């Protein structure tokens, strides 16, 4: 390869906040540096909430980052990027236009013959020839996404951005479409060689990428970049392929599921010189039902985290959250990628519903964050803690967490364990008390 490839997209220390400046602001992306060169296939991989969709929209120029620079071909980008096309998770087709009209949208200003020529070629590529006059409503999910892809390809973009293009499809349809894109990448004469794709599927990432950008959450940031040097088309069963998948498993476990000691490690901060304040550890945003479900699924066996995700057909990020919560409460242990029940976990699975609440209540009270919650309620007049007060406290105590999901999580666990009750009408939280029936006269 004689010439070095041209850099198309370059991000320099990009940070992005939602609701910047307001007290509810939230850091979505922190200091991201990334380049996409010609013939790169960059895959952004990470659990949900790590800002990967935001990142791809920043690259396309749809979102202006709060700080940092976005360059396209060395020129600072303002507004939508000139060379980018995009495929959306939920297709984003215009329901009032036929397949033909949808696909022709980006090339409306070209001469008619040119439009026809491109349309024929693109429709043949994605296998939509017979559907030209159909409306999107009449198509299946897979066919809709083919229209989305055709619409992106017809503009002959320099960079094709895809935001979880297969997530809204069923497993089999997604597999077919994935193979077809893979074939496109493999054919040497096809112009499409530069892609940015967002996914939470590890195999999918290895299948397409020349570089995998592994992202971590809270705040969203680039963790590691893993180069993939396999020739197209790739075979998921080849040893080289498997090796990279294993490597990604290890990385994702390390960033998302640190060893037990690290998770429960108390973060201490210096406050006012001598006094030390202990910052509570957040509870992952999962419900008691999910944790109990995972525990009963485990039984006596020992599973790999990714195996569980695959078996349940769920995003691994979601599984990892459940695993983390279960581990935090002491119901499971995770040596490396493995997951198995602890003695307490076994006891919990075997217990009656009432006893389960009892055990969970005991474990919750050992968490700093619930200690804080109960203390906050107790100091309120009449022991009524207004919602906003708790939200403010959470924001101060855990600035990196999203206050609202955390609030909901605390509420669902606290209510499940019979610790607290919530008055929806007055927006206050109280300690839960059984309402005793009136004594017989």
């Amino acid at each position: 390869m004689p010439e070095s490839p041209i850099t198309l997209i370059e991000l320099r220390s990009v940070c992005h906040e939602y609701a910047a400046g307001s007290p509810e602001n939230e850091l979505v992306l922190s200091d991201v540096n990334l380049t996409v060169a010609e013939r790169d296939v960059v895959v952004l991989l990470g659990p949900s909430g790590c800002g990967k969709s935001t990142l791809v929209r920043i690259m396309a120029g749809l979102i202006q980052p709060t700080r940092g620079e976005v360059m396209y071909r060395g020129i600072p980008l303002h507004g939508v990027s000139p060379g980018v096309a995009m495929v959306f998770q939920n297709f984003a087709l215009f329901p009032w236009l036929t397949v033909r009209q949808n696909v022709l949208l980006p090339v409306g200003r070209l001469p008619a013959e040119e439009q026809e020529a491109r349309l024929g070629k693109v429709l043949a590529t994605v296998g939509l020839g017979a559907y030209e006059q159909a409306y999107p409503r009449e198509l299946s999910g897979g066919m809709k996404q083919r229209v989305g892809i055709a619409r992106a390809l017809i503009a002959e973009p320099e960079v094709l951005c895809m935001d979880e293009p297969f997530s809204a499809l069923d497993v089999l349809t997604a597999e077919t479409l994935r193979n077809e894109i893979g074939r496109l990448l493999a054919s040497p004469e096809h112009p499409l060689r530069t892609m940015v794709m967002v996914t939470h599927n590890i195999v999918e990432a290895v299948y397409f990428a020349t570089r995998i950008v592994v992202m971590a959450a809270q705040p969203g940031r680039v963790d590691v970049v893993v180069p993939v040097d396999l020739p197209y088309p790739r075979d998921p069963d080849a040893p080289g392929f498997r090796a990279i998948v294993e490597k990604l498993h290890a990385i994702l476990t390390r960033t998302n599921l640190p060893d037990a000691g690290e998770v429960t490690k108390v973060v201490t901060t210096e406050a006012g010189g001598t006094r030390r304040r202990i910052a509570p550890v957040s509870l992952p945003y999962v419900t008691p039902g999910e944790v109990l479900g995972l525990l009963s699924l485990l039984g006596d066996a020992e599973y790999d985290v990714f195996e569980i995700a695959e078996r349940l057909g769920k995003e691994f990020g979601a599984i990892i959250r459940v695993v983390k919560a279960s581990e935090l409460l002491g119901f499971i242990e995770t040596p490396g990628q493995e997951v198995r029940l602890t003695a307490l976990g076994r006891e919990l699975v075997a217990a009656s519903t009432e006893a389960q609440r009892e055990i969970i209540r005991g474990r919750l009270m050992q968490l700093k964050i619930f200690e804080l919650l109960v203390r906050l309620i107790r100091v309120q007049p009449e022991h009524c803690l207004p919602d906003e007060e708790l939200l403010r406290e959470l924001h101060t105590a855990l600035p990196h967490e999203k206050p609202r999901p955390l609030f909901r999580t605390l509420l669902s666990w606290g209510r499940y364990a019979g610790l607290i009750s919530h008055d929806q009408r007055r927006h206050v939280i109280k300690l839960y008390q059984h309402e005793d029936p009136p004594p017989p006269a």
Partner: protein
Amino acid sequence: MSMTATLSRPERERPAIWFEALVVLGVAALLLGGVEVVAQWRQPLHQTVEIDLSARALPVYALFSLARGWIAYFFSLLFTLVVASWAFYDVRARRYILPALDVLQSVPVLGFLPGLVLALVALFPHSNTGLELSCVIMIFTGQVWNMAFSYYDSLCGVPGDYRMLGRLYGFKWWHRFLKIELPFGAQGLLYNSMVSMAGGWFFLSITEAFKLGDQDFRVPGIGSYMSVAIERGDVRAQLLGVLAMGVVILVVDRLVWWPLVVWSRKFKMDDFGSGRIDQPGWQRWLARSRAMQAATHRIGLWLAPLAAVPGPPPASVPVAATAAESSGRTARGIYYLVLAGLVGSMVWGAVELASLLMRVNLADWLDILSNTGLSFLRVLAAVGLGTLWTVPLGVWIGLNPKLSSRLQPFIQFVASFPAPMIYPWILLLVLKTGGSLQWGSVPLIMMGTQWYILFNVAAAASAIPNDIVSCAEVLRLSGWRRWRKFLLPAVFPGLVTGWITAAGGAWNATIVSEYVQIGDKLYQATGLGAYISRATNDGNFPRLAAAVLVMALVVVGINRSLWKRLQVFANERCRFLT
């Protein structure tokens, strides 16, 4: 910020003592107001009440107008719940009720006026009750129809599972109504109640002061205050009247609708907690006020037995079954009696109408038709011009959530202000610029109707999925292409809904817009609305009946032939995929 600092923050939720006093005072004021209204109704009949144009008189007038509006609303609600439920549960009756409502909806307020007033005044010859009642019923006819349609729609939308549940637990009809149907209909009913209240205010100046032949009728209220102020050319009084109307609208919105809107969100069928409920501070206080809590507790205890749900029905109840059978027989008897009464009165009405129409000669009919043509052009122009500016603005508002939350209260206020109150000002402006009412009535019509388009377009634009907006940006759709391929189709379903409401309202508005009296000068345009107004003023009932009938037929005809089809098309083609 350290944690101890926030913990020791003083409690700020319990309202101050003055707030408690305010609550008690408010209740007292309400009671006194009621006494005042009853006194006015029981006074000896006074056809043309003297209106006091001083500012001191205004609060009482506002009270009278408000009382009429709310009494009319109460009847509207009652009518809605009864008739919509009837139409829903009685398949045979439905076939007649729905078209009847559709036609009644398009009969302008003035169409009901003469018959009502003369009949009711004759019924209560010695007190104001008859006149007041006819005024209330006219407001009622401006409020009720869309509420009835909305509640009927929500009855149709109750999922079968919930009805099944009601059957399983042996719900009586009032349980089904309180626990299932009303909660499902609450949000739609509430939204339509707000629109209805605004619709009721719209004709306030007509319903409170009108002429019937040589008889002049006037009841005390803001509307009559305004019309007297305009008649005498008293600018200060006009300004005061507009101000008072504004205050009334604001107060009703803040004290009644807004709390109800907040409360009704608990009936939303999607998962809770998705959005924050932004309760205004004073309302939180009200909820915490001791006086209020005590009162609501009392009411709750009192209502509890009514709302208590019976257990599942016992396995076998032969005695109850026969009882139910015999009570069913009486119920059926009553049902047929009511039906016969309704059919009888309809036949009588048709005969009366026919005898009136017999006296209209061919020349009159031709006159009415040509007038209809002109009014049609005005309605078209008003809707078209309204569309031209409200669509871009609506799209802009809808796509900017921040902007829309800031502009919403303002636009809502402007939309619910009864435009006819300030018609003279606008007309004077038109005349100053050398126009005449022939053209000038178009902006007058627009003032009352364009808001429906704006609201519906803004709502449709804010419902465009985010990805579609992003996609249009990536595709670099711009200029006219952006409108044609993206924005117009995206808001089209909302636009059609807006058009239907606006056009219906525009026909009604021609009555006040083509015939405007300022001081002792009368301005008329050639059109169906002016024709109806004139016929009312002259007490020429045959002509009035003919013109009203034509207007109703035209509105229903256009609805059926054009709007319904457009609506079907829009819903088939332009709804977003889910």
